[in-house]
């Protein structure tokens, strides 16, 4: 190869080097971006909350702890193959998706929140490289335990779910009753979930084998003793984390009201386009 040709090739490599470096640099996140989480759970002594965030693929920092409205949340250390290195749930061209589990003690909650429910949309995240990020995390509600539900005439007996975003709860019916309403614990989700109901009369409420929007469901639903009432929820958006519930309420034939709870959950599974969209949206939110 001629010397001049050789140096021309090296020049091309130099240009590619600079261009790729600058492009990757322009794509870098200034700070990690948290996904939206819709979480509603009953308070326990120890509450474990899951949060997902996107960060640069070469980010080695871990989350040390979080502050949620002054309440300290401890981050569970990942004791995987290589402790000290954060584990990637998914990886993309410039970013990775990571997950943290935060432990919040009830004592700390009580001290700051009193006897009411504890609700938050933001938290301050402290990383091991001394960054702290005010993260917009969606909607998290920790509820006070409700009074006993032991003698429910409609009682959840089976649960299921898949990675496709659908969750299933099966209820046993112990006395004749009618279901009059289904309500989500987090109202923001009203338009984002669909429901498939089966059992009772009307026997099925579904569309093309999938669910119907909440407001298209027909009530009341008559159920006889010994029947099973099945509720399947579909959540089509894999950008968000979901860990919540809905209440099924109504009246027994003897005139008593009842309320029962079904659960729903969905874990994020992002595509490259979702990543771009989330980063764009969250940046706009921040301004």
């Amino acid at each position, binding site marked *: *190869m001629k010397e001049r040709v*050789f140096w021309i090739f090296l020049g091309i490599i130099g240009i590619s*080097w600079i261009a790729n470096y600058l492009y990757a640099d322009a794509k870098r996140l200034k700070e990690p971006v948290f996904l939206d989480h819709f979480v509603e759970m009953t308070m326990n002594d120890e509450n474990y909350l899951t949060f997902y965030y996107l960060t640069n693929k070469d980010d080695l920092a871990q989350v040390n702890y979080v502050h949620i409205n002054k309440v300290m949340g401890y981050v569970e250390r990942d004791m995987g193959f290589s402790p000290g290195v954060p584990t990637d749930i998914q990886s993309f061209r410039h970013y990775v998706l990571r997950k943290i589990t935060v432990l919040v003690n009830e004592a700390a909650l009580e001290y700051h929140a009193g006897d009411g429910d504890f609700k938050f949309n933001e938290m301050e995240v402290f990383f091991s490289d001394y960054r702290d990020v005010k993260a917009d995390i969606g909607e998290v509600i920790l509820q006070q335990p409700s009074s006993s539900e032991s003698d429910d005439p409609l009682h959840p007996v089976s649960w299921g779910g898949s990675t496709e975003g659908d969750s299933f709860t099966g209820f046993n019916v112990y006395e004749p009753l009618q279901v009059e309403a289904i309500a989500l614990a987090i109202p923001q989700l009203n338009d984002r979930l669909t429901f498939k109901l089966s059992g009772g009369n009307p026997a099925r409420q579904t569309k093309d084998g999938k669910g119907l929007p909440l407001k298209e469901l027909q009530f009341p639903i008559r159920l006889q003793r010994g029947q099973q009432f099945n509720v399947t929820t579909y959540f089509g958006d894999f950008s968000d984390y979901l860990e919540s519930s809905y209440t099924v309420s109504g009246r027994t034939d003897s005139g008593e009201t009842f309320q029962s709870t079904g659960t729903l959950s969905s874990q994020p599974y992002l595509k490259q386009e979702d990543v771009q969209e989330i980063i764009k949206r969250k940046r706009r939110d921040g301004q």
Partner: protein
Amino acid sequence: MSQAVKWIFIGYFFVWFRIDIAIDWLPDPVGYFLIYLGASKLSTEYSVSPKASRFAAAGVILSLPSVFISYLPSGVLTGNYYILLLLVKLVVAFYLFSLLKVITAKFNQSEWTRRTELRSRYYVFIHLAALFIMTLTPNLLSNEVAWLTGTTSLALLVMDLSFLLLLNQIRNLKPMPTTDITV
């Protein structure tokens, strides 16, 4: 000839091979210094352009941080430094090849000139391709990076070995007497 090529051989081996136990025990700067010694001896002896030895001298300085590479944080900077190291190695090797070509031509060993030319083509082409791929890595998916670096490092390994082999073969080459037609 023999002695100088031997230095280049050992020097290139140092540059190519790493034994990282806290530091690199086959340090690159030492390798480039040996290449510098060998190449400058050859270029004065056979009055060839001293470019190979000059770039090897630059290599001594540029490769100094590589001795402590296991202490460098893995990040953007280290990634770029690996590109620089490979770039320096390629430039030095390019001029070593042309040095050897000129010398074998002076020795009237046209068969060896041809072989050197052929090896240098493969060597330079593969290295240019590997460097180009390395510059793309910040914008590639991790699995793409994994298989690309896998294949390129295998190809680079073959090229390094073939260069060392060539140096070893060429080491004891003697000038071929030109046939005297007047006899």
